[in-house]
């Protein structure tokens, strides 16, 4: 089977090429951050971590992170609460109008984000709301809430309603059923919802760029500095911002794991 082996090699090559395509830009950011020259001159004459030191000692870096964090945390809290309620309506109960609710819910996902951002900007300005990180969080929510609702819904579809009924038959109260039966089972869905909400908000550019006003979240700053005013600070802040979001996610995961073990 010579032909089979050739095909196998070709398939591996194809996947390797796709992975290279996906990761070349990300590796490029890291490579670009290891210079100390004003202009990009690759291969660098001096490989250094200087830019990271500059980034960490710069007030801007901290400010960008705190704005991104404020937005992401608000989005996480609101989208998890609303998304859980929404998922119950989306997947747990059968009711008249559910199909319409489901279609309406997924619409914002199939909507060009920058256009949504511009529509929201016009609305905020028209009704006299000053754009700030709060309006950016609201804009994120319009797009992220449907996704979080879907993520939690997937968990609800695999959920056996009979267990709730059994608990009621055994004399459990409403609160007990929610706390002892429902929540433990959909908890993984809620946790995925939190992760999606956080990461999608943290990394969002197209909504933030139009709705954050004078408050600049990380991706918007990177976007504006890429177009003009390049310096090694830009790639190093990009790397730091990405690593911080990964650390927050890993940290949340570890906390959850530790909490489970303690119980």
């Amino acid at each position: 089977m010579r032909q089979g082996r050739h095909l196998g090699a070709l398939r591996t090559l194809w996947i390797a090429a796709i992975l290279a395509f996906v990761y070349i830009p990300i590796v490029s950011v890291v490579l670009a951050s290891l210079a100390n020259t004003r202009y990009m001159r690759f291969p660098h004459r001096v490989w250094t971590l200087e830019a990271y030191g500059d980034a960490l000692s710069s007030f801007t870096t901290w400010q960008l992170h705190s704005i991104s964090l404020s937005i992401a945390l608000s989005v996480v809290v609101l989208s998890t609460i609303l998304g859980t309620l929404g998922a119950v309506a989306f997947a747990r109960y059968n009711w008249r109008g559910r199909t319409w609710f489901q279609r309406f819910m997924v619409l914002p996902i199939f909507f060009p984000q920058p256009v949504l951002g511009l529509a929201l900007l016009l609305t905020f300005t028209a009704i006299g709301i000053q754009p700030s990180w709060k309006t950016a969080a609201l804009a994120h929510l319009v797009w992220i809430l449907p996704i979080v609702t879907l993520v939690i819904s997937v968990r609800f579809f695999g959920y056996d309603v009979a267990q709730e009924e059994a608990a009621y038959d055994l004399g459990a109260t409403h609160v007990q059923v929610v706390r002892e039966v429902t929540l433990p089972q959909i908890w993984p869905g809620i946790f995925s919802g939190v992760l999606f909400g956080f990461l999608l908000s943290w990394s969002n550019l197209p909504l933030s760029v139009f709705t954050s006003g004078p408050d600049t979240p990380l991706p918007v700053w990177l976007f504006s500095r890429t177009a003009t005013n390049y310096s090694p600070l830009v790639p190093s802040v990009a790397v730091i911002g990405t690593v911080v979001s990964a650390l927050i996610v890993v940290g949340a995961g570890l906390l959850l794991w530790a909490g489970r073990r303690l119980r």
Partner: protein
Amino acid sequence: MTRAGSPGPWFAAPVAIFMLLCFAGPILIVTWFSLMPGRTFELTTAFTLENYVAAISDGYARPMMWSLLGAAITTIVTALLAWPSAIILHRYAGRWASLVSALIALPIFISESVRLFGMSVFMMPRGGILAGSLNAAFGIEIGSILNTWNAALVGMIYIHLPFMLFPLLLGVSLIPADRIEAARDLGANRWQVMREVELPLAAPGLMIGALLTFVLCLGANAEAAILGGRAVTVITAAIEQRFNYAQDWPMGAALTVGVIAITAAIVLPVLSRLDLNRLTKR
């Protein structure tokens, strides 16, 4: 089985109200503004269609064309890249499949601005990663590829590939393996198997992937700004220009409504045929 008195609507209410206020509301307000006379900042009942007429006569059909063309090209190219990838991952990758899928999915969570910035330092002329490496290793000088419409297209394909790949993976997993064997036994060649068996069976995934990619690309502007160097003006850039610099809200709103109308014309028919319960349940 619809039961009267189901608590469903109560759970739906908070989300539905939020979406009405923050999704349907802005669309309504934008539509209203698009019917106001040029350069007004207030909503009245003096409706006019002049902005729509002006949008076409003022040459805004051009940015719209660029956006539509970009979305179409990106959808086709990502589908051509994702189809073999999905087949390989689903059928041949075995235990590597989930690792490779995760590796491809991961960058979705890295900001678009970080990845496009990476693309731009890679493509940069002279001192860029690609040009610099080629020059240092082989002494080859390459010209500038950055700041062209093609560079913007590469960026759009790059950003939207996962949005095509993952629905396609779902679609490919809907093809029963014995169907393909049966077709082969009946003498179908590779091409026939793909056209007659695989593509129709994987159609739902392909539809969602194409829909998602096309619609997201329709509004995409970061790629054209960072990689395209504004070599062409896409529709979102034109709208932003109307809103912010020209201070002409009604005209910007009319262009926005144009994009929304195209999106709706593509999305709504497909969405009404899709069974969301089946797809999320899997």
